[in-house]
C-alpha cells in the first residue's frame, strides 16, 4: 500500500449548478481536491473528471477555468477566493495557439504573465522548457507548421511558463493514435511530478487512459428522474492502491474499477 496523506484543500466546488433558460445542465456539483503528500516524493495531484459525451463536462470545465460563471454555487481555491479566469491554466482540446505568433512568441506571452520570472530570465526559461519537451528546433515556427502532438506540448509549456499550479486538460486523449496517446500520457505524468502543488484536472471520456494517470476520479452523470448532471461517484485511487503505478492497466483491481465507473455512467 502507498504511504500518503491528504492535506489542505486546493480546489473546492460547492453546490455548483448551471442552467440555460429552463434547461438544467449541471446540478449540485460538490467535490474537493486536496494536496496529497507522499513522503520522499515530489508529487502533484492528477484528478479525472469522467463523463459521457454531451453530459456537460465542457461546461463544468469552463466553470472550473473561471471562463464561465455558474448559475448557482461556487468554485474556490485554497485561499478561499472564487476562481477567476487566469487562476487555472487551460490546455484546450484542439491545443489552440495564436496563429499569428511564432511558438517562441506564444511562450513569451505566457511567461510575461508569470510574476516569478524577471524579463531577462524569460528567454532562458523558454529555451529550458523547449529543450525538455523537444521543441527547440520549432521555436521559430508558426502553429500551422506543427503536428498535433507538438502543438499539445507547446500548449502545456505555455501553461507551465504561465506559472499556474492548476492545469485543466480538456479531452487531451481525443483523436490520438496509440503511440501519441502514450507520449501525451507520459507528458502529463511528467508535469504532475514537477511540483508538489501542481494539480492537473483531466476532463475526458477516455476512461482507461484518464484513470491510469489519476489519483482521484470524479464521475459525472445523470440520476433517474432528476434533470442535470452531477458528481455521481468519487473514487479514491490512492486508497485502492491504484495510483502512481506503472503498467496499472494490467492489474485486476484497475479493470474492476473501470467496470465500476462504466456501470455508473
Amino acid at each position, binding site marked *: 500500500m502507498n504511504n500518503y496523506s491528504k492535506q489542505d484543500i486546493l480546489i473546492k466546488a460547492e453546490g455548483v449548478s448551471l442552467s440555460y433558460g429552463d434547461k438544467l445542465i449541471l446540478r449540485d456539483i460538490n467535490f474537493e481536491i486536496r494536496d496529497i503528500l507522499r513522503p520522499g516524493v515530489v508529487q502533484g495531484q492528477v484528478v479525472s473528471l469522467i463523463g459521457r459525451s454531451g453530459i456537460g463536462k465542457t461546461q463544468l470545465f469552463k466553470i472550473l*477555468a*473561471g*471562463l464561465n460563471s455558474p448559475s448557482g454555487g461556487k468554485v474556490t481555491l485554497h485561499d478561499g477566493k472564487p476562481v477567476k*479566469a*487566469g487562476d*487555472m*491554466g*487551460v490546455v*484546450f482540446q*484542439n491545443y*489552440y*495557439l*495564436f*496563429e*499569428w505568433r511564432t511558438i517562441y512568441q506564444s511562450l513569451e*506571452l*505566457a511567461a510575461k*504573465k508569470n510574476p516569478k520570472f524577471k524579463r531577462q530570465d524569460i528567454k532562458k526559461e523558454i529555451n529550458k522548457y523547449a529543450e525538455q519537451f523537444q521543441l527547440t528546433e520549432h521555436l521559430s515556427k*508558426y502553429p*500551422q*507548421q506543427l503536428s498535433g502532438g507538438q502543438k499539445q506540448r507547446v500548449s502545456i509549456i*505555455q*501553461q507551465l511558463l*504561465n506559472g499556474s499550479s492548476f492545469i485543466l486538460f480538456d479531452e487531451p486523449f481525443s483523436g490520438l493514435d496509440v503511440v501519441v496517446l502514450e507520449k501525451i500520457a507520459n507528458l502529463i505524468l511528467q508535469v504532475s511530478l514537477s511540483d508538489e502543488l501542481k494539480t492537473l484536472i483531466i476532463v475526458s471520456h477516455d476512461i482507461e487512459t484518464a484513470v491510469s494517470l489519476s489519483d482521484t476520479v470524479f464521475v459525472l452523470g445523470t440520476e433517474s428522474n432528476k434533470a442535470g448532471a452531477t458528481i455521481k461517484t468519487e473514487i479514491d485511487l490512492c486508497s485502492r492502491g491504484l495510483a502512481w503505478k506503472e503498467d496499472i492497466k494490467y492489474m485486476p483491481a484497475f479493470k474492476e474499477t473501470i467496470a465500476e465507473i462504466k456501470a455508473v455512467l
Partner: protein
Amino acid sequence: MFKQIFSPFGKINKQIFIVLAIVQSILALVFWHFASNGLVPKPLKVADAFFTLLTSKNLLDNVIISFILTIKAMAISIVITLFFSYLSVIPFFKTIAHFIVKCRYLTLTGLIFIFTLLTHDGSELKLSLLIFGIVPFFVTSFLAVIITTDNQQFEICKTLGYNNWETLYEVIVVGKADQVLEIIRQNFAITWLMITLVEGLSMSEGGVGVGTMLIKYNKYNDITNVLALQLVIFVIGLIFDLILGNLKFWLFPHSKLQIHK
C-alpha cells in the same frame, strides 16, 4: 487533365491555370474582334489608343492625381475604420460602428451639396466624399472579421491572465493585422471604382483625375479612348492588388501558411 478542367472541384496546377487564362483571354479578344459592328472599336484599335495614352503626359498627370487622392482617402479611412472597429467591442462604441455600417445605403450623389457646403475647395470635397463612401465598406468588412473571431482566442488570453484591454490588443489589434491589409486590398477595388464617380460628381470643383478624363471622353463619344482608359484603370488596380497581396505575405508570413493549410 482535360477532364479535371471541367469537373466540379477539379484540381489543376498553376501552369495549367495560367495557360487556361491566356487561352480564354485570346478567345475573348477574337470574339470581340469579330463581334465589333463598327460602333464598338476593335481590340487592336483600343490597344493602339492604350499605348498612345500611356505615352501622354495628360494621362500620367491625371493618374497621379487620382492615385494620390485614393491613397490619401484610404489612409484616412483605415484610421477611422480601425478606431471604430477596435472600439466596437466596447458597448458605447458598438452602436456607432453599426450606424457606420448602415451608412452604406446612403448615396454619394444625394450628399454632394451638403459636402460642398462643409468643405473649402474641390480637392477637399472629393477627399471627404471618397472617405464617406469608403468607410462604411471598410467598417463592414472589419466588423465581420471581429464578429467571426474564434471565442477560443479570447479564452486563451483570459486563461493566461490577460485583462480585457490586453486581450483586445492581442486578439483584435495584433491578431487581425493581416486582415486589415486584406480588407484594404479587397476594398481598393471599391475605392478605385468610387474615385471615378467622385471625380465625375465634382467636375466643376476641380476637373482633374481619371474620372474626369473618362467623363470627357464619354461626352464626345470617344469610345476607343474610354475603353483604353478603362484598361489603364484595370491594370493599375491589378498592380496594386498584387503589391498589397505580396506585402501581406511579407509582413505576416502566417497568412501564407493559412492559405496553404
